[in-house]
């Protein structure tokens, strides 16, 4: 992985603790399996997704809604697959 601010990475890790169990479980796997191989641009996209309210975030992960931004949508595809 190319250099990404390590402090920012740790902040992202903590912000991936959510209010909904389903998201915690999905994101835990995402970090175990996929996060380390993301590019900085992909991490940026993931960071933007983290700003979603939990309920919207879960709807997107569950395929009940989609995100318009192609970079964010690509991350969501990964989350749907883990």
């Amino acid at each position, binding site marked *: 992985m190319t250099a990404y601010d390590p*402090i920012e990475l740790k902040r992202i890790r903590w912000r991936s603790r959510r209010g909904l169990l389903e998201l915690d*479980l999905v994101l835990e796997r995402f970090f175990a399996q996929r996060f380390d191989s993301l590019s900085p641009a992909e991490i940026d996209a993931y960071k933007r997704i983290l700003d979603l309210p939990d*309920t919207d975030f879960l709807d997107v992960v569950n395929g009940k809604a989609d995100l318009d931004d192609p970079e964010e949508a690509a991350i969501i595809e990964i989350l749907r697959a883990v």
Partner: protein
Amino acid sequence: MRAALQLSEAGLKTAVLSKVFPTRSHTVAAQGGVSASLGNSEEDHWTWHMYDTVKGSDWLGDQDAIEFMCREAPKVVTELEHYGMPFDRNADGTIYQRPFGGHMSNFGEKPVRRACAAADRTGHAMLHALYQRNVRANTHFFVEWMALDLIRDADGNVQGVIAMEMETSEIVVFQAKATLFATGGAGRIYASSTNAFINTGDGLGMAARAGIPLEDMEFWQFHPTGVAGAGVLITEGVRGEGGILRNSAGERFMERYAPNAKDLASRDVVSRAMVTEINEGRGCGPNKDHVLLDITHLDPEVIMSKLPGIREISIKFAGVDPIKAPIPVVPTCHYQMGGIPTNYHGEVVVDGKPVNGFYAAGECACASVHGANRLGTNSLLDLLVFGKSSANSMIDFIKAQPLELPELATADVERSVARVERLNKQTNGVAVNDARTAMQRTMQAHCGVFRFKDMLAEGVEKILEVEKMVQQTEISDKSSVFNMARIEALELENLIEVAKATMISANARTESRGAHVRDDAPDTPETPNGRDDANWLKHTLWSRDGNRLQYKPVNLQPLTVDTIALKTRSY
């Protein structure tokens, strides 16, 4: 946030500390609604709501607090509406209400529509409405701050908290004239829990370490079928569609426990059968710790059309497609009835007296309105009613205090700092994950939805062993910035207090009541449902110091109406 709003609007300087952004609190998970006898859809009355709550609590709830909550309910829900909560509405513009389990009209006669909801996002909408309103009222939010310990002076008065800023690991004292805990539940003490990872009972751990007893911790609500290892709920509708529970031999074991209703027996019968199978060695998986919910015999078309969400959950969280293989399930912890003992003013009460400057509300508190069993939708109501009432008590208390803050007592601060230091310096210690897994497995196996005398006694020994592991946790990451390992180790130190309180209180209570059901306290004509009012109509108080148990009477005296007399709880 309900309390903070009341305080800020009264012109007080109010700081809210939260581990996560406030609208990402676990309340966001609440979908069902919040109860209030508004009577918008049909006749309803707070006295009926009160009756249902007392009965639901299996008479362990304090009737003064329950009356207060049910009487206040329409007011606090209407206030929330004025704060901008987007409740579902009737054609005439009033709040739409729907029925919810256990809420009845005319003292238990028939279901009544009492739950107010905002689509399936009630908790989310509530958090947002309260957050926005707090911002307007200039509440100061300290986001991503973790409170570590309570500060009490030599006389026991509470002076504030010690907290850690997650971004820097800096430890700071927040001195305050009044301190409120609204830190939520501790469902993560169990291996299978519907609670998000953040529900680590920090407020309970802090209170316990500060010498405050915890009340009625043996009472936890469970749901029979959560995905084993994940906790995500599988609705009971799956059994309605023909789902069959099987043990490791593939046997449809419900035929033995409920020859007529079989897999459609009531929640408690199903949970109890599942636990009995697991305990007798017929559980599935490498740890023999769950059973299987089989729908492979159903037409795939039916599964796709009637249970699509369940198929998704099963694939995602159990790793099995239920069309092809059965789903691993286990009774799953959902809600904590006990907590920090308070009265209905939200004041924390020890030895019959309020602790100066200390308040608690929400799932971490025990007022006690839920007693031995909570009714659905009463917990969001609890947050609103007791959030508000504790803030009103705080305002009165603060006004009576001298303007200047008293001198800070440093003993607790030093103890707290030493606790973090111990963790930072630990070598040859125990991995946090190992200690947490040991705790969760012990709680699930020995103190789950259905309890056995010998298992409980053994569980007490085991959890005290696990405590020793927790005292020696070691983290390899010693860095300062957003150190999740350190945070999780500190959270575990809170969870273990709750786990001990639960196990020890449950072991001692030799009756069955509400959510605490024991094999050796069965349903007999002399003791219906195994409840023993002669000996156990009382609240448990567990103290950390020496794991001491004390008891206090249930308040059967409401504020303005007659006592709701003891009866067998049956629906």
